[in-house]
């Protein structure tokens, strides 16, 4: 069990190493997939590119925001 966990952790650290980035990009892809495959969301298909770029930038801002907050908390402590 310990070995499996270590492997999962090593794979996670190699590919991502940042939970905010993983969640942000996964969420963006899920939203794109929904718009792409669900018929009711077809009117949004023209904006897929924009949604993807906004999702990527929002993820970057979120992960940097977390680092800024961490740094502030460290300074306060």
């Amino acid at each position, binding site marked *: 069990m310990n070995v499996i966990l270590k492997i999962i952790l090593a794979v996670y650290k190699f*590919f991502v190493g940042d939970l905010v980035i993983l969640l942000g990009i996964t969420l963006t892809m899920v939203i794109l997939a929904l718009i*792409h495959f669900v018929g009711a969301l077809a009117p949004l298909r023209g904006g897929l590119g924009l949604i*993807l770029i906004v999702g990527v930038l929002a993820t*970057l801002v979120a992960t*940097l925001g977390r680092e800024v907050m961490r740094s502030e908390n460290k300074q306060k402590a």
Partner: protein
Amino acid sequence: MQWAIVIAAFLAASVEFVEAFTLVLVAGITVNWRSSIVGALAAVATLAVIIATLGVALVTLIPIGVLRFVIGFLLLLFGLKWLKNAIQRYSGLKFLHDEEAIYAANLAQARARGEAVGTRLDPFGVLLSYKSVLLEGLEVAFIVISFGSGGSNGIGLAAIGAAAAGVLVILVGALVQAPLQRIPENTLKFIVGIMLTTFGTFWSGESFGINWPFSDLFLLLLAAFYLVVSVLLITAIKQHQQRGASATTASEAPTLSQEKEVRL
């Protein structure tokens, strides 16, 4: 007609080769050349096996959309991680790497262990090079098959055009790599972060059927856009840090004067 096939394949394949070679170059400069070349050669071997096994049926059997999605997704993860670290260093949230000191320390450690320096295989470098060459190589194969299937001996002619494009891109790349190695580490990582994020966005978008404006040229526009946003983020974080630092100094000042009063 036959020249048209060669030229069309040459032009279309050049774009794909430039995209693949850019990431091979990036892996070579930022990680090490051994990892980058091993990754690229492994991808060429995989491509050779795929093409030898499937031949012309390749176009119908390989789901290029799925491949684009997987590679685009991974590039976005890698790219954002690199970009985030570079932005943190530029804005002062993280210390800039003292590259020469780190290099000297690594050199001394490796020599003490009796290892050759900078030649160990790095999984990130191998994977980055492998997946970019595999994806773009498959796209070149698709180009050769689709351009060449029109006329007699068309595939051979299209393959000549694509091969010429490959040789040209490698030659230009070999000339360009020396000046690139003189760029400071964090600047290079910042550029790489932007490039990986750009390619990741582009390929994962294509997997969802997005037709980017200006086709492959959109990569340049997207990279420029990400660059501008990143510079704005660095400026914003720097200003925020400065404000935080001056607020801390201001709050500490009364405490210091109170201490003086107590002492008096």
